């Protein structure tokens, strides 16, 4: 009881000291931490090693949203299956989609692979386009700028700090972009297979070609008929490798490896997807170096 009283009295004070901002995915948290610096306390809702489409809507996430001053999400329907009820249950006007302190990052990006028609027989299609846009490292610059503008909008008192942090971050990031460009240059035109097309933006950025997915349709688990077709495709087109996410079973991929000898590479999609990935730079370092070519 005493603890509760203590919290009730001191919680509002601690909130004013630092902006408490909830973000849906770890990559947004990492970016926000760079831009917000000491003025922002980042609360990440999803875990990096979970399928971003299927985040477990634990009740503890409601209390996190309940106490947040702002919310930044990926958007493009990536959170549609888990975030809306959490927002409603938290009943916090500051994290309502119509609030000034709510940011939907997908609005800042030109989404690719927007389906011409939408039908559930085509699997779990995203009507707005492919939502995994943060995996194009060039987009990170756009997102950093938008997050910076957002922070200035909701916390003008620290404007200089946010703008300074953004400039420092962008300078570093541009340097890394050149480095990754170099690493990926020889891999241009390489053909790959994926489980789900979540590397669409990464592939587009570096000219990799996705020629097939292990799931027959987005969100539909592998079927034996489709797997047999994939074996034929792999034997015919000789793609370099299977790029596999961390959150689906590699059972079918392993079967393809056994049948065709194709290489299997695990590709993390977010910070924290693998234990060794603890930063945004680390994520793209891993992604660009994981693909070897011969």
């Amino acid at each position: 009881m005493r603890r509760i009283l203590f919290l009730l009295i001191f919680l509002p004070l601690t909130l004013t000291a630092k902006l408490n901002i909830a973000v849906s995915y770890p990559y947004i948290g990492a970016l926000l931490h760079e831009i917000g610096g000491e003025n922002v306390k980042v609360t990440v809702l999803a875990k990096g090693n979970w399928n971003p489409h299927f985040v477990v809507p634990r009740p503890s996430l409601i209390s996190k949203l309940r106490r947040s001053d702002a919310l930044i999400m990926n958007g493009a329907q990536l959170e549609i299956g888990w975030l809306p009820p959490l927002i409603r249950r938290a009943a916090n006007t500051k994290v309502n989609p119509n609030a000034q302190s709510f940011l939907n990052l997908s609005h800042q990006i030109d989404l690719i692979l927007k389906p011409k028609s939408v039908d559930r027989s085509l699997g779990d299609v995203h009507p707005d386009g492919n939502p995994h846009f943060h995996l194009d490292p060039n987009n990170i610059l756009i997102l950093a700028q938008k997050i910076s503008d957002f922070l200035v909008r909701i916390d003008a008192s620290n404007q200089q700090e946010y703008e300074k942090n953004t400039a420092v971050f962008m300078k570093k990031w541009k340097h890394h972009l050149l480095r990754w460009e170099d690493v990926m240059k020889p891999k241009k035109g390489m053909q790959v297979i994926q489980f789900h097309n979540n590397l669409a933006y990464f592939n587009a950025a570096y000219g990799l070609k996705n020629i097939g997915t292990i799931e027959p349709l987005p969100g539909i688990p592998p079927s034996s008929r489709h797997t047999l077709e994939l074996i034929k495709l792999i034997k015919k087109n000789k793609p370099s490798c299977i790029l596999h996410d961390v959150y689906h079973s590699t059972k079918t991929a392993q079967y393809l490896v056994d049948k065709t000898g194709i290489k299997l590479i695990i590709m993390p999609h977010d910070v924290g997807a693998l234990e060794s990935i603890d930063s945004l730079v680390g994520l793209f370092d891993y992604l660009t170096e994981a693909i070897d070519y011969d």
Partner: protein
Amino acid sequence: MKKSTYLALCASTLLYAEAPAVKPLSQRTFSQSQFIPDISLIVDTSFAYRNKDQDGLGGLSIPGVVEDFFGQGETDGHEHTGYSSDNGFNINYAELVLSSNVDPSFRLDSVFHFGLDSVEIEELYFTNTTLIDGLRIRGGKILSNFTRFNSQHQHFWDFNEVPLVYKGFLGSEKLNELGLQFQYTLPLEEYVILGLEVSQGDNEKSFGNDTLTLSNAQEIKGADAPSLLVTYIKTSFDIGDTTVVPGFSYIHGQSRSLDAHDGHEVAFDGTSSLYNIELTVKHYFDSYSFLSWQSEWMRLEKKGDEYHLENNVLEVHDQKIEQEGYYSQLVYAHDQNLRVGVRYDSIYKNAYDFSEEALPSTPYKRYSAMGEYHFSEFSRLRLEYTHNSALFKEGVNGFEAENVDSVILSLNLAIGAHGAHDF
């Protein structure tokens, strides 16, 4: 490939050259189609096989708890049918869900429950979350949020039937009342919510406030509505990838009921209290695979006067009914496709201060086991086996136990807007 696409494009251009251009939705001047609410339709069909024929199922009951278990019993003037109540093919329900924001202050949700020859408004309520931070206000017809299970719609249940304690203490439709609901999430590190609901108080099993009139013109005074109060506290914490959700609820309200059969009328005038303790422990192995243990204990206490009228002779007795039971279930999701589960149901106390005939000794038990295959998020095939030993038939020497075994294969399909997953 490319060439053929090109040719097809040219051909189609020629074919449709004369047709007026249809503008995309966003550019039609007066189009309001963007404002269409989220719509979805959920359909459940099944095939049932039981060790008893339809006549054998009729008249089975849990004495003093559930009358006519498989029956199409009529209560409150409308018909209720059990899940897959007919042997053979069944269309169990179609649920039409419409919801949308009304304006910056309100959201409106509605669920229409269709049976083969019935329609019912299952839920129809507004939600406001903007008045006070942490406070969610709902008003209308609402499935009470007093437990995890009570607020879940049928397609979300892990087993076909409501647990025995719900069927016995609240009825197949659970606590689904007209009223106001207030839920407050405390501004704490831990998840703690307090709930308060004030309802009309018209539950088919335990609550009611109507004035009753017996056939000898004896009147039993009703109570003013709203006459039902629901309170609860729930909390939740995580231990690594395991989430624990305990909760406690207390419900109190007026109770009036009138049953008449074979020229014998029984009326009850008093109050009912319902206590519930729930605990869910859910462990996630990854995004899809989990092990979930969910249990609820319930106690129903009814106190008041019971009126018996037979051959125009009226007797009034003090009545106190105490019933207790619980269910416990374990569900394991192996991956996106496969899910298996078992459930145990028990009503272990069924005490009447006054009873005309001896009730069979408790516990009344039911065992269920199910396996599911999810083709996608939107379709699910379920095979469920149930062994129900809670049922009795009234014979010449009192109640005789009748075990019912059933195997039900059901297919559940959902179209339209994507409903978000609740925990």
